[in-house]
């Protein structure tokens, strides 16, 4: 029996196409901005050529921003695919579970209490702890075989609570300018990020991604249900904890430097299923690449779209993501109205 079939070839082609797409968008991300640079100039400046201004623009302004878009988009796509695999549910995603909102609250609390400026590890640590708590509570509420309705309602409740807690923190903040700054930061943006931000977020994102990726085969076994997966040797309790930990590390690290960027985790796996198939183990890497491509594209778009003030990239992803979410709800309507499916 030949197992390397047409489907495997197709997956390989899609992967190559995704890598090319992400590479192209990464190059474009280095070239687009108030000062437009050609790809040749970008490559030149990247390796120490060109004028000093060009080098500063590419290496110190746009490169960290590009790396963050790549890493954050990637971890959001991966987290969405992992959560959907864990819960065998196409509507699972970090943002619908309130993880970014909770992470934002953790970060805002630390800032408001004056425990850290935006360059200390206290910030990602607080964001990660809050993200962990939110996903943990959500899965505890949802229980073992949660239907769509319970997950979405619980996610709504948690994100509302986290949002309210964030507002309260800003409300009580003595410095109105700090509150305004926090409010803008909460919208989600990659503007003016430096390599310090990259160093702050990247380690957590890499560890989170590694944890999630290491569980890819267990997600496949879960396709036949938790009980059957357990009988195949999957430690389902441990798997749940690892996924919560991986998502919290990745999303917490991302939110700590870029604010709340939503819906990429929801959208990326859905874009990949028609091309890659439904195997949750094989969706992880393509979803990460798609997430990276989406955020790179969104971050390029906010620089191109003419507007009087800067559009925040988190606003753009939500504007695109929410209609997509509504479309998914319509598609899953039968399962939803069936209650706890």
């Amino acid at each position: 029996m030949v197992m390397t079939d047409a489907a495997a070839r197709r997956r390989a082609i899609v992967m190559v196409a995704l890598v090319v797409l992400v590479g192209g968008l990464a190059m474009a991300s280095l070239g687009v901005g108030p000062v437009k640079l050609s790809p040749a100039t970008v490559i030149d400046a990247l390796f120490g050529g060109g004028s000093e201004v060009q080098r500063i623009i590419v290496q110190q302004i746009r490169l960290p921003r590009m790396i963050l878009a790549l890493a954050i988009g990637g971890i959001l796509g991966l987290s969405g695919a992992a959560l959907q695999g864990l819960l065998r549910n196409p509507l699972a995603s970090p943002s619908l579970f309130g993880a970014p909102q909770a992470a934002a609250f953790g970060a805002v609390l630390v800032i408001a209490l004056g425990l850290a400026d935006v360059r200390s590890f206290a910030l990602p640590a607080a964001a990660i702890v809050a993200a962990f708590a939110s996903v943990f509570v959500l899965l505890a509420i949802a229980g073992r075989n949660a239907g769509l309705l319970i997950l979405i309602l619980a996610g709504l409740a948690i994100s509302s609570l986290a949002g309210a807690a964030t507002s309260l923190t800003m409300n009580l903040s003595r410095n109105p300018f700090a509150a305004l700054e926090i409010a803008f930061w909460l919208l989600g943006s990659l503007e003016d990020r430096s390599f310090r931000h990259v160093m702050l977020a990247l380690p957590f994102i890499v560890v989170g991604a590694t944890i999630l990726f290491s569980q890819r085969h267990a997600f496949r076994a879960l396709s036949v249900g938790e009980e059957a997966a357990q009988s195949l040797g999957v430690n389902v309790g441990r798997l749940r904890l690892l996924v919560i930990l991986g998502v919290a590390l990745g999303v917490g690290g991302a939110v700590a430097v870029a604010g709340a960027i939503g819906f990429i985790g929801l959208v990326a796996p859905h874009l990949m299923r028609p091309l890659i198939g439904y195997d949750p183990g094989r969706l992880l890497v393509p979803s990460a690449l798609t997430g990276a491509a989406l955020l790179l594209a969104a971050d390029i778009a906010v620089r191109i779209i003419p507007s009087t003030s800067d559009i925040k990239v988190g606003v753009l992803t939500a504007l695109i993501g929410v209609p997509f979410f509504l479309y998914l709800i319509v598609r899953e309507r039968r399962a939803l109205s069936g209650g706890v499916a």
Partner: protein
Amino acid sequence: MSEAVLLAASSVSVSLGNRVVVRDVSLALSGKHLVALVGPNGAGKTTLLRALAGLVPSLGTIEVGGDALPSLTLQERAQRFAYLPQGHQVHWPLPAKDIVALGRYPHGAVDPARLTEKDTAAVMRAMQATDVVALRDRSVTELSGGERSRVALARVLAVEAPILLADEPTASLDPRYQLEVMSNLRAAADRGMLVIVVTHDLGLAARFADTVLVLSDGRLVSQGPPAVGLSDKIIADVFRVRTYRADHDHDTVIVPWAEI
């Protein structure tokens, strides 16, 4: 029983929450046997099956091939017990061959695209036994209920474990598929496995099983050949029904006939 005991339970009790679901069950079963586990709704059949496989914690001792269940790792348990849950649910539209290949997961074959020759051969044997070779590239969600149950059965057969536990494998199948599933399980038992089947169908139990375990309110009230476990008295006491009986080709036909 003359053969070596493969699965032994002694004073096994299981509580779910603060309700005792299985009480003080002791049994000894050997390979090459098809065992039917019967009992009314809520008698604790599924819970007992899960406890035997170590999927829910239990009090008492369970031994598999002489090894205490808690001393085995999750993977060792998975190699010894193939477990088919009720409903045969598959959450994603995956090709049937990938579902069957999951049966090799306990043997380290975690990626269906990278099976060893040995794993591939086991998957093929299982698919041939359940006649699903022609369905292997079809998505399981497109299959009929009968086809899907055969794919699910192929998955547990592919484990090639000494013990196969099946929870109501014939539920919601048409008569032909019910017979097919039971014949498949019978064949697996004849090949040397210990097969334990939870079923509500007393007729199928009488016809196919070597041993019948009767569970009532969490207690094992009978353990023996069908003539003992499915006697008029036990069926009347446990199920509160009268049966119609007949002989057909030396097999006993049992049909629940009237409430008591």
